[in-house]
């Protein structure tokens, strides 16, 4: 759907600057910001931030992205209370991440897949000095 809107000149300049920074068109930037604004209104504790890995849905007052909380939820086999205890967060923040991930599974699964693809080999390509370390296990008695 095409929706036209009137913007103050200064807002349009800022929008264009933001679009240029991300390599988007001003129209793309506008659509994204509207979508993010709607999601912020509809979902509790959700914020959007630019990260070196792209713009991501994050949890407010935290450096964690929603996908990172979901990685923990998977590690704890879906136990949201255990994740809340792990992070020393109120349960409601973990639930907020869960609900966001349920509403946008493709977005979260894609970021998780990107994360898993960045294995030791890919890491060494980026950061050649990376050294693998696997500590010795204690001797069995």
């Amino acid at each position, binding site marked *: 759907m095409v929706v036209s809107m009137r913007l103050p000149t200064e807002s349009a300049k800022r929008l264009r600057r933001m679009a240029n920074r991300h390599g988007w068109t001003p129209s793309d930037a506008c659509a994204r910001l509207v979508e993010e604004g709607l999601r912020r209104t509809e979902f509790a504790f959700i914020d959007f*931030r630019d*990260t*070196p*890995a792209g713009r991501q849905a994050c949890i*407010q*007052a*935290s*450096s*964690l*992205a929603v996908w*990172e909380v979901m*990685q*923990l939820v998977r*590690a*704890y086999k879906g136990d949201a209370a*255990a994740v809340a205890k*792990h*992070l*020393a967060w109120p349960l409601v923040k973990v639930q907020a991440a869960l609900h966001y991930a349920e509403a946008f599974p493709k977005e979260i699964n894609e*970021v998780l897949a*990107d*994360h*898993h693809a*960045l294995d*030791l080999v890919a*890491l060494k390509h*980026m*950061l050649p*000095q*990376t*050294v*693998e*370390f*696997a*500590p*010795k*296990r*204690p001797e*069995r008695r």
Partner: protein
Amino acid sequence: MLRLLLDEGISPAVAMGLRRRCHGMEVFAMAEWEGGNFVGLPDSVCLREAAVHELTLVTYDRGAISPVLKEWMEEGITHGGVIFVDEKTISPAETGQLVSALAGLAKEPGDWEWTNRISFLRDRCDTAFPITSKLQNRKRSLPDLRRRWPDNSR
């Protein structure tokens, strides 16, 4: 000596476990470090401050931190070292396993210079975890006991 700053995604219980296990080791969970002022700040800001305090960052987040490190490396900016934990062999839910792995890392290469060092920490998958083998031995020992003292099994 290795001094650690744990990313927000790592349980503060890991910091407590490491302090118990490695006496004298300085470990900070992000939530408690500098009064929690760095929680929610960009990774580059935390990394920069960690470098000032000669702290090595421990994180599971390769996606966001590795591009920052690459850029810094190319620009000649130093950092206090980063330990990327492999979630495939050390689950974030297994805090005890992470404590053991980090304690092993702190102990073995005692003379490592941590400035600009990047480690990929993983657990050895070739052998069973010691606690599992202990439990298996315990299970195996029950029939042995019954064989030895048949009356006790009833």
